Structures are given as C-alpha cells and as structure tokens.
C-alpha cells in the first residue's frame, strides 16, 4: 500500500518534471541565437503593416498618407525584396543590440539602405522612388531612434 503511494507520487513528479523539461527545451531553442534569427527572417514589411486577419493597421495608413500613394503603390513597396531584405538586417541588429549589446545602425546607414533599395528595385517606378527618398530625408534624423524604440525582451526577462 505504502509502495503504491510512493509510486504514484513518483509518477506525478515524473509527469511534472518531464512537462517542465519539454517546455524549457522549447524556450531554450526559441531564445537561442539560431531561434531569434529564424524568427527575424520570417517577419516581412507586410507583417508589420497588417494584423493577423490581413487587415492593414494604423501604421500602414500613416505611411500611405505620408507618402501620399495608392494601395497599389504600397503593395509594390511591401513586396519589394530589397526592402524586405533590409528590414531583416535592421530587425536582426535591433534584436542583437537589445539582447546582446552591440552597435546601433546609424540614421545615415538606414536612410542610405532605403535609398539604395528603392533605387535598385526595378519594380518601383521613378515617381514612387522619389516620394520614398524625399519623405525619408525628412525623417532621416529620427529613423534610428524610432527603430531602436522597439521593445525587445527575452522570455526569461533578462
């Protein structure tokens, strides 16, 4: 009888510890450098400008109004592989800076990246290119502060 109680307690303990171990393994995997990189690589401009249902968010309309462009033009910008690749570089740096320490990307660096991207992307027509570059130059001095204001935390709070 006593033995049965001990065995039952051991089994409950085993279930609890195994569950904690499994969940902890997921956390370790996700917050590892490789895990963070994988997450950053899945985020696109469209993800940042829409919600889970695919509806555009306020940032989308802010950008659209600021650039004074149509939905089709916004589609062109959101689909730009050059801009999406640069977003990954910026996000990767923001995460590295916030979690591991390091150097921020400067305003000029980010602005130049945007200018190079829109100039390199043939799908963006000249008028749209100029709008992006002109508006970008207005906010040039605030780009870095805006980007690095993003709140980034590890699950364990460090």
């Amino acid at each position, binding site marked *: 009888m006593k*033995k049965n109680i*001990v*065995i039952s307690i*051991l*089994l409950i*303990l*085993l*279930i609890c*510890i*195994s*569950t*904690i*171990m*499994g*969940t*902890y*393994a*997921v956390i*370790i*995997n*996700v917050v590892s450098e490789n*895990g963070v990189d*994988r*997450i950053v690589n*899945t*985020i696109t401009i*469209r*993800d*940042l*400008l*829409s*919600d*889970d249902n*695919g509806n555009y*968010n*306020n*940032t989308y309309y802010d950008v659209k109004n600021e650039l004074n462009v149509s939905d089709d033009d916004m589609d062109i910008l959101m689909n730009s592989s050059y801009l999406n690749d640069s977003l990954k570089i910026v996000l990767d740096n923001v995460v590295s800076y916030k979690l591991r320490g390091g150097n921020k990307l400067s305003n000029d660096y980010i602005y130049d990246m945007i200018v190079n991207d829109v100039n390199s992307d043939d799908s963006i027509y000249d008028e749209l290119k100029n709008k992006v570059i002109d508006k970008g130059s207005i906010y040039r001095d605030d780009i870095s502060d805006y980007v690095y204001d993003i709140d980034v935390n590890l699950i364990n709070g460090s």
Partner: protein
Amino acid sequence: MLFLFILVVVIIILLFLFEKDKINVLKKLFITFIISGSFIFIFGLLFKLFISFSVNSINISGVINIIFREFVIISIIFYVCGIISYIGYFLMKKSI
C-alpha cells in the same frame, strides 16, 4: 536542463526499484510520456492563443507558428518515447 534530465533519470530508476513487476514500469512510463507530451502540446496551443489575443496590431502568425512548431516537435518526441516504452512492455509481456 541537465538537472531536470538527471532528476527524470533518478525518478525512473526509483520506479524500477519500488515496483515489484519491473515490466509494469514500462507501461507506466508510456502513460507518463503520453500525458507529458499532451501537456506540452496544450501549453503550445495556449501560448499560440495567448499571443494571438495579446498582439493584434501586427501580423505575427509566422512567428507564432515557428514557436508552436517547437512545442509540437517536443511533444512528438515524448509520444515516441511513450510508444517505445509501450512496445518494450508489450514485447516483454509476450515473451514471458
């Protein structure tokens, strides 16, 4: 993590020591692993739901799916361990 793993091994050894019918431990391990795997899967689902309800401003379904996949992989590992335990139990019981 290593501490938890050692703890699991110690508990399994204790189970073998306390249980009269040693083969029965394998059946109990099968149940344990299946329950743990199910709990981990449920935690993954709860995590997915919690994040989906908490973050509405941007589309993070891609990110959530990556993390949920990790939960599913770990729970599958537990299910496989459970099934192996049961096969061991079944074969040993049959051979007696």
